[in-house]
């Protein structure tokens, strides 16, 4: 379960102060499928990074399954990112010059999982890239890279999948495929939080949270 309590994120550039998140409180229950929407620069990625334990709030607390993440050691945070969370970046963040399958294997390497090759191959098959396993990121299209990033996020079977515009580079068919995958994972009991600009994508969600200027302006359940 995710609980944000009065979380703010302030960026200081020179004497300019920018409140990317402004006093946001949000609670996401286990097994939910949430879409986060809002205009560019409204703070969606900022919030997602905090949820993914990649960044820390300037103020406020983040409770993950009842534990205050702010008080955890660097190693505990690494373990949480490794086992509990599957993160899909807006800009993919695949290792360059490294094949798709090795990229997908990477989280399992740090988890010490066995039979990585087989599991990575299955994850790639699920995103429809079984035949691209040996391609390096620069040999893949933007949409294919994005799907490799999705495969990497789901390969460890984390309880939470956080995806920053996972369909931003995909055509309609691929978008539907990836969204069906997220729905499938959600039906298997996983929490899915995804950022999107597209209303069609938000259609798949059970709940839609809208941000504007770092604040939640609407929160609808469907």
């Amino acid at each position, binding site marked *: 379960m995710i609980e944000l309590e009065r979380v703010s994120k302030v960026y200081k550039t020179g004497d300019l102060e920018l409140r990317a998140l402004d006093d946001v409180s949000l609670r996401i229950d286990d097994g939910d499928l949430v879409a986060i929407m809002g205009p560019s620069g409204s703070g969606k990625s900022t919030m997602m*990074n905090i949820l*993914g334990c*990649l*960044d*820390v709030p300037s103020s406020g607390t983040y409770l993950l399954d009842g534990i205050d993440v702010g008080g955890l050691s*660097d*190693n505990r945070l*690494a*373990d949480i*990112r*490794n*086992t509990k969370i599957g*993160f899909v*970046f807006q800009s993919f*963040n*695949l*290792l*360059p*010059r*490294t094949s798709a399958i*090795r990229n997908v294997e*990477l*989280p399992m*390497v*740090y*988890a*010490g999982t066995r039979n990585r090759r087989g599991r990575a191959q299955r994850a790639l098959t699920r995103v429809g890239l079984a035949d691209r396993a040996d391609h390096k990121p620069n040999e893949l299209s933007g949409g294919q890279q994005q799907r490799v990033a999705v495969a*990497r996020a789901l390969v460890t079977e984390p309880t939470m999948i956080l995806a920053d515009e996972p369909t931003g580079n995909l055509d309609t068919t691929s978008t539907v495929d990836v969204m069906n995958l997220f729905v499938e994972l959600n039906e298997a009991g996983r929490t899915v939080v995804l950022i999107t600009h597209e209303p069609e994508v938000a259609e798949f969600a059970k709940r839609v949270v809208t941000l504007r200027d770092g604040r939640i302006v609407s929160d609808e359940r469907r």
Partner: protein
Amino acid sequence: MTLWESARIAMRGLRSNKLRSALTMLGIIIGVAAVIVLVAFGNGLQRFVADAFGPLANQIQISKDQGGVGAKDLTDADVRALRDTGRAPAIATVSPTVGGSAQLQLAGGGSYRTGITGTEADYLDVANRELVVGSFFDDQQVTSKAKVVVLGPNPVASLFGGQAGAALGQDVRIGRTTFRIIGVLAANGQQDDVAVMPLGAARSYLLGGGDVVGSVTVRAVSTDAVPQAVEQATTILDQRHGIRDPEDRDFTVTALQSLLDQSSQVLSFVTIFVAAVAGISLIVGSIGVANIMLVTVTERTREIGIRKAIGARRRAILQQFLIEAMVLTGIGGVIGILLGIGISVAAGIVLPQLVPDFPAPSVSVGSVVLAFGVSLLIGLLAGGFPANRAARMRPIDALRHQ
């Protein structure tokens, strides 16, 4: 996360960017090779100086003091006493010579008057001379008083028109005895008007003189032992000649002390020079290694961010980068050693052909160990520090790093 796993990640990292790995290694190779080659050149120079001064620097001349009333000659018995290693442990060799002059005469006409030196088989070493052609007489020919002679360049010039090859094997009459010419000395500018023959032959056929020795050249066991050798020789001869007051001494013992001082001074300059060259090239090499490691690791902050975001612990990242640094500096270091030795050996073959007498570089084990050790250390530090710093960053900051 096992060490083995880290090593596999590291090797994959090295292989996935071959150009970067090669460039990093190149920095190390050049650094290590430079240290080895420069030190080898310095060593060669040092050895050259030592060789040039060494043979003369441990020599001591003993001769009779002329003019003293009742002065005793140096004799074969004196020589035997000096050769007693029990009483003179600092003395390595003792070479007596007798001198005079005589007429050389060829059967086909032509004659020339020159200095006669009667000596033993180690004359070339003791006098630091070389032959142009032929060979020198050996111990057996000394003992048997063989009638053989080695001519200096002046008699050869006069009797054979300077043709050393023509002189070799010819017979020459000296006094009333016929000698066979078995060798010709190279010029040394000082004792070129000479004919050298076995000590006993000079005495028996030309100079007479019983057991009298003209002068004795003594060599100390080492340059450092010269003062002791002088003291031991003086003590022995004092005793044999019945000298109580040094004022009454009828012989002089002279070490080539000035040469000795000069050589040790030059040697110490060369030693300091070699150390300075090694130090500077080591610093330059280290900066190269540190520089390339710093640049590549900083450039890879984003990669570290990705690994952290996916759940890598700090330790795992540090291990990966340290192993990468170790493999690069290790392989680069070994190649650098081989290259450094190769260049030194090649220079030792090629340079003396281009520049006569150029001192051949000589690789020192110390420089190899030092260069490899320091580059490994610098590689680990320069690879480890920035990797550690990047691994401490929040994943998001590392990911945003440009």
